[in-house]
């Protein structure tokens, strides 16, 4: 570990951070445009060409707004909560491989901030800490609606976290690794000589179950009871304004992007695709990044599509779907898949 290695790590972290920020501005604009299109409206048009700078304009506005601190808040926790919501969102992205590694001189540089051996577990751990921010924000605001939002968030997170983790297990069993870069490597090549060798072909039920749980985990419609406008004003962030509110907003969109990126990495082949250039060179890596981004934005589009299409669930329906449908379904699928895989890999036990 010399100076150059440290420099590479710093560059990676900064690039990932800046990418996530710019990406969020674009995602907010894209969501408004997509939802407007689906509802026969035009969406934002004023700031920049086709309104593309709308996110930036909103961000600047929030940045310069007055911080309003209600009298009943528990101040330390109230300040801590927005920061806590952003941290796990940023950390999740650090283990996701964005493109194939390339060589600079003798060094191999990967398009991934760090490749953990326990990458998937790390992601599950971080997404379970993300809900703390919501609960703490709700509790520290010292007001009814945020508190109800916070309590709902706890129950929802505990229920759907289990389903999300269980939905990922078949992929781990199939690939035999928790490292995300190895999961991507396991999906290279062809399936039956024709299709790309993505996990979704073998593990389609897992992908669907994971996607449902991921929508619930990011508190997006139709599972956005945490901030249900018609019942709870704004939910857990009712009492927040200015840049503190902006941090919650930022974290939500980074989470959507990270969850989509995770879905792509685990089920949709990650950055695998036609390389076009010699493998291991910088242009080939960039092409890989493009494949990764195309797939990820396609999954993000699904998030927006669902939001524009489905009405919000009732609270008891949410709990019933989580505990009585999703978790038994993931467990049953895991059992079936493991038994079939055992037969395929090791043969029948009586043979």
């Amino acid at each position, binding site marked *: 570990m010399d100076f150059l290695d440290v420099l590479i790590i710093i560059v990676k972290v900064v690039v990932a951070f800046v990418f996530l920020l710019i990406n969020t501005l674009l995602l907010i604009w894209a969501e408004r445009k997509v939802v407007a299109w689906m509802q026969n409206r035009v969406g934002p048009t004023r700031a920049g060409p086709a309104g593309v700078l709308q996110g930036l304009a909103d961000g600047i506005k929030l940045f310069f707004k007055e911080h309003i601190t209600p009298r009943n808040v528990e101040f330390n926790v109230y300040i801590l909560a927005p920061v806590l919501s952003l941290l796990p969102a940023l950390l999740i992205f650090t283990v996701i491989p964005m493109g194939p590694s390339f060589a600079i001189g003798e060094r191999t540089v990967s398009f991934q901030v760090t490749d953990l051996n326990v990458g998937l577990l790390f992601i599950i751990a971080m997404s379970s800490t993300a809900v703390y921010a919501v609960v703490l924000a709700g509790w520290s605001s010292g007001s009814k609606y945020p*508190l109800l939002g916070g*309590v709902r968030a706890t129950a929802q997170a505990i229920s759907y976290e289990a389903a999300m983790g269980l939905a990922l297990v078949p992929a781990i069993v199939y690939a035999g690794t928790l490292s995300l870069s190895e999961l991507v490597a396991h999906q290279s090549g062809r399936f039956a000589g024709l299709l790309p060798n993505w996990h979704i072909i073998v593990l389609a039920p897992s992908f669907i179950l994971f996607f449902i749980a991921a929508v619930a985990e990011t508190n997006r419609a139709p599972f956005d009871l945490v901030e249900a406008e018609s019942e709870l004003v704004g939910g857990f962030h009712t009492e927040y304004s200015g840049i503190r509110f902006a941090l919650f907003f930022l974290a939500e969109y980074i989470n959507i992007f990270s969850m989509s990126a995770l879905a792509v990495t685990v089920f949709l082949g990650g950055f695998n695709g036609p390389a076009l250039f010699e493998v291991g060179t910088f242009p080939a890596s960039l092409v890989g990044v493009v494949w990764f981004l195309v797939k990820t934005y396609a999954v993000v589009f699904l998030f927006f599509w669902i939001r524009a299409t489905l009405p919000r669930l009732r609270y008891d329906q949410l709990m019933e779907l989580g505990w009585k449908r999703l978790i038994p379904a993931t467990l049953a699928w895991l059992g079936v898949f493991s038994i079939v895989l055992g037969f395929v890999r090791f043969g029948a036990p009586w043979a």
Partner: protein
Amino acid sequence: MTELILFVLFGVGALAGAIMMVASRNPVYSALGLIGTMFSIAVLYVVNGAHFVAAVQIVVYAGAVMTLFLFVIMLIGVDQPEDTTEQLPIQRPAALALGAILLIGFVVVIAAGTLAGSDDGTVVGTVEAIADELFTNWLLPFEVTTLLLVIASVGAIVLAQFKLRDRK
């Protein structure tokens, strides 16, 4: 050197969290202190190369403390500090006695010198290495622990069933 710096930083963090947990009047702050300690300990595991244990530590305890939060908010109430009258007069001497036993245990173990960590922080903490150990050398203790957890979860379900029947 890096290991020492991280150890000092997060060791202090773990202690501060523990003190905060015991000392704060508001139960929510106690829970927060507990999370702080858990996270600091997870970082110490990472420093020693045990990534798997660190990740599991956060997954398990983050969920557990989350439930604790829910209990605090639902049972004690949002803005009332905890009732400080002692319900169990015996618990203070009992806690002191148990603490003393724990302290003696620590002293004995440290004096015997069997508490040495890895010298260079190169424990192989990968999932594969841990699975190898668990399913070969430590299979019986592992399975017995599993049984214990199954008993606990079955017990919880049975208790819930009793309550449902009583209501009907």
